[in-house]
């Protein structure tokens, strides 16, 4: 491959960000917005082109680029397989929508806000195609900085508390992961993921290393009991920040579990399955109950995110094709649907300046178009067949059922609860008589809101009916991963007989 397409994908948003930051013409608000929109759309087009070029029958890494940075220690190495490509496309797809959604709510420093978003896009894409642990770590952590700023600068009233909580949680995990990466380098002499896949890591150390990675991923997923930063972060973040957080940032951890936990530490992954299942089940059931009682729209959706990510972690550690493919699909689906739900909240928040559910009611009478799109995403979130939400949940539960009946049965209860809290939320906001005089003054979706939400609705319904493009992209790589995993476990058990 002559043209460094992955590096272009990574660097393009940053170039755009720098351009906006330093060019004078972009001090005009609209100009900054259009430039960033243009850049992110170009990046989206590029990622679609990449997807078309991608050979989904091949399970090895493609488009690999390698540059020595610090000789013998840190290599810049990127490449993709069927697992990462979808996350890249998701990132480039959500970012322009986010940029369109940015409007009058961001009152000051719009330019810097856009720069933060674009910078974050770079980091996210970097995370999803790093093939070296060190640069993965760099991208992974650097991606948090713009998010930290977005919450801390453009957030709501308690933004400092939330940003601080967010920082505290993620810091702890990150430090442990860094130590683990350094010790891997000491043990094997490399941080190259492909090489490590082949070399394997001594099973004696796998458990500790796995736990170190887990502590970082668990926080960002987020898994119970380290989830409490998420509702606060969402509540304080501006709409675009919530969208990026829910749609992409949370997916880094799920991706990390698949790529690193299972790939690098198969023996430990096998060993810790009960832990993951337990925490996932708690996340699914516990947070669903908590979501039921929320009085703040954003908090409710944030808690439902925790429950949905519980399905993801459970699916990944079933090590079955359905479970892992389902988890990837669920992450993509959640990326689309939760993004849309946060946008929906943003739409009414902008008009009413409150997120309290009880202040609403009866808005279908004044915002019928909004009621329709909101309904579509509500149904997606509760996993109705015909939306992407169903395919992910179904495959995950199917895969889990193969491995453990009890876990799958308990997790299925979460599906009932999911319907309860989503429909109840919808009913309290949309249906009923209008009791609040403010609601009467609401105006329906404007053109740009309509465009964003319909695009998301169409995507979530299209892939609900025809998920094959996504599933066939991932299947070969997932099978390759499972093969690698099974081989490792087999060798390990044979050597211990």
């Amino acid at each position, binding site marked *: 491959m002559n043209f460094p397409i992955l590096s272009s994908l990574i660097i393009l948003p940053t170039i755009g960000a720098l351009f906006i930051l330093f060019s004078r013409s972009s001090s005009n608000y609209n100009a900054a917005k259009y430039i960033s929109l243009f850049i992110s759309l170009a990046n989206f087009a590029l990622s679609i082109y990449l997807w078309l070029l991608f050979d989904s029958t091949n399970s090895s890494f493609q488009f690999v680029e390698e540059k020595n940075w610090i000789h013998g220690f840190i290599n810049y190495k990127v490449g993709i397989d069927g697992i990462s490509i979808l996350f890249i496309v998701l990132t480039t797809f959500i970012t322009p929508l986010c940029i369109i959604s940015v409007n009058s709510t961001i009152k000051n420093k719009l330019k810097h806000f856009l720069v933060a978003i674009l910078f974050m896009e770079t980091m996210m894409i970097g995370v999803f195609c790093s093939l070296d642990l060190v640069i993965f770590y760099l991208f992974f952590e650097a991606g948090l900085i713009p998010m930290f700023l977005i919450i801390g600068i453009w957030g709501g009233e308690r933004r400092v508390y939330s940003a601080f909580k967010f920082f505290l949680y993620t810091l702890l995990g990150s430090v442990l992961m860094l130590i683990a990466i350094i010790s891997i380098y000491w043990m094997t002499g490399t941080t190259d993921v492909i090489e490590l896949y082949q070399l394997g890591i001594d099973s004696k150390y796998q458990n500790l290393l796995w736990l170190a990675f887990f502590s970082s991923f668990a926080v960002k997923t987020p898994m119970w009991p380290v989830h409490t930063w998420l509702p606060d972060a969402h509540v304080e973040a501006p709409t675009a920040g919530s969208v990026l957080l829910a749609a992409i940032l949370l997916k880094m951890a799920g991706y990390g579990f698949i790529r690193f936990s299972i790939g690098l530490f198969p023996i430990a992954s096998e060993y810790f399955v009960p832990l993951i299942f337990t925490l996932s089940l708690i996340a699914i059931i516990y947070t669903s109950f908590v979501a039921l009682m929320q009085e703040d729209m954003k908090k409710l959706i944030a808690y439902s995110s925790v429950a949905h990510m519980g399905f993801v972690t459970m699916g990944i550690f079933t090590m079955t094709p359905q479970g892992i493919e389902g988890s990837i699909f669920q992450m993509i689906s959640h990326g689309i649907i939760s993004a849309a739900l946060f946008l929906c909240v943003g739409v009414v928040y902008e008009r009413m300046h409150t997120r309290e559910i009880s202040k609403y009611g009866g808005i279908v009478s004044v915002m019928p178009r909004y009621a329709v799109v909101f309904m579509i995403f509500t149904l997606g979130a509760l996993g109705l067949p015909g939306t992407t939400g169903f395919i992910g949940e179904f495959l995950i539960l199917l895969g889990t059922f193969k491995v453990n*009946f009890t876990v799958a049965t308990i997790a299925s209860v979460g599906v009932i609860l999911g319907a309860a809290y989503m429909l109840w939320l919808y009913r309290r906001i949309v249906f009923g008589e209008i009791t609040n005089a403010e609601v009467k003054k609401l105006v329906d979706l404007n053109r740009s809101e309509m465009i964003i939400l319909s695009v998301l609705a169409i995507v979530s319904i299209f892939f609900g009916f025809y998920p094959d493009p996504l599933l066939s992209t991932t299947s070969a790589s997932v099978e390759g991963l499972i093969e690698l995993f099974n081989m490792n476990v087999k060798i390990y058990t044979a050597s211990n007989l």
Partner: protein
Amino acid sequence: MEKFIIFLPLSAAIISGFFGKIIGNRSSQIITSLFVSLSALISIYIFYDVINNGYTNNVVIAKWISSGQLDVNWSIKIDQLSAVMLVVVTLISSIVHIYSIGYMSHDPHQPRFMSYLSLFTFAMLVLVTSDNFLQLFFGWEGVGLCSYFLIGFWFKKPTANAAAIKAFIVNRVGDFGFALGIFLVFYIFGTVNYEEVFSQVFIYADNKLNFLGIELNAINLICFLLFIGAMGKSAQIFLHTWLPDAMEGPTPVSALIHAATMVTAGVFLVVRCSPIYEYSPIILNFITIIGMTTALFAASVALAQNDIKKIIAYSTCSQLGYMFFAAGVGAYNVAMFHLFTHAFFKALLFLGSGSIIHSFQNEQDINKMGGVYKHLPYTYTLMIIGTLALTGFPFLSGFYSKDLIIEFAYLKGNTFGYYACAIGIFTAVLTSIYSWRLIFKTFHGEYSNKNQPLSSIHESPMIMLIPLIILAVGSIFAGFIFKDLFMQQGSFIDFWQGSIFFLEPLTTNHPPKEIVYLTPILVTISIPFSYYIFLKNKSITDNLVNGNKPLYLLLKNKWYFDELYDVLFVKSSKFLGKYLWKKIDGLIIDRFGPDGLSSLFKYFSIKAVKFQSGFVYQYAFIMLIGFSLILTIIIIN
């Protein structure tokens, strides 16, 4: 051809749903009714083809989900069973569409209503024509969704919204079992395609597996889990509570969804899976028990209700119970027969009651009606026909199907069978009594509505009456005409082919004459009996009520299921949610997690701050101590 049946209603729904405002009320009504009627015509043609030429087909439309071993297609399967369902669904649906034009004429949201009806029809057709469990599940949830939309159609009514959510969630509980059933099917058979599953059932008939710590027969478990789904959708006892509440929706909806089609999906599921159920006699007995309990329970509750639609809703619940116990005793074709005839007379009763409600300007309490049969001659006659058919009055359609159910229960020959037979006869009598109570209280006696003058009561328009007349014709003749077909007699030997599976051929014996004649005789006697106690001599019923107050309250309050569930599930979930949120998340995780950590830092930094007091003598003092300490250590060493 088959594709048109399915996609005509879908396109009608899309056109009316998205462009209803542009094309106007009238056009969307015409388009939806026309498209669904066309679909009905094609279905009838295919049904005809199936009967006469044994036509079957399986059209694969597209790939749906494929992951690892799992491979699922979107498809249209036409066989004897789905052909029957196609006719029932599209025919009743088109009649309801036309009726709705009149019934909803004053509603501000007519295109939306028509769109939902068509969308429902689409989902129901997808359900019945599936060739695999997953597409069935899609249709299953799809009809549930449309039911949710339509129950909550009047979105300003809090009761309607509550009922809609209740319907969806109770159905989800059933679907929880259903989904687990599908997972287990995939686990055992490695596929979810009907043909592939059904052809392997006998191999796995004795497979045992450990489920939640209990050793179970795999086939039994599959049957049980699938039946949980069926119980939810078909409102069987314990999961029935949503159906009476669903009457909050507009009456045409009740007729289409909550009487003729959607609620029978559970029966369809059991019949469709007869190749599995036949290997699970235990679960068949269980189905019989649930079916007859529901039949009896619902009929008893119907006796004490005063809302005209709730009475009919409980009646539906009860009739669905009959269908299940027919399936439970292995007479799947009889269950289908009752499903078929029931669709006509129950839709007729619902639409007829809609006509009454329409005439009374949205009054539903039968105590506030009475004495209007002269004012509503057509509706009155049609309701009488519906009631006769429902109660199984000789030679109307309900007579054939209900009597067969009772006969086959008897012929089953075991304790369950005899018991079911007895309950069946008793429930038939109850059915007759509550149905005639409805008729007498509504149409006869004194006019007792203080809010409207008698003269304002007027007959419904023709656009509502003609659909009723079509249904009345079906209610009278459907049983007689199709009896041989469903029972595979006469020129229809082996009509069902492989679509219904009997491990042992269905018995051709006849029960003793006493049993055969008992039900029609009792049913006929109960007409004058009801006339006497509800009209001529009301003191009897009053005394009965006053003498058995607890029993009456039990029935009137629907055996207190709602109250019980409210405490068990709704209140406790809310409490649990609040507890986990405030106590665990807030008081434990946050307090000892981030907040604790940050206050710990704060504590130490405040302590550290105190060292930097700014007074030079303190610094000097500390330096002195430090210096002397170091010196001491050096000297000691």
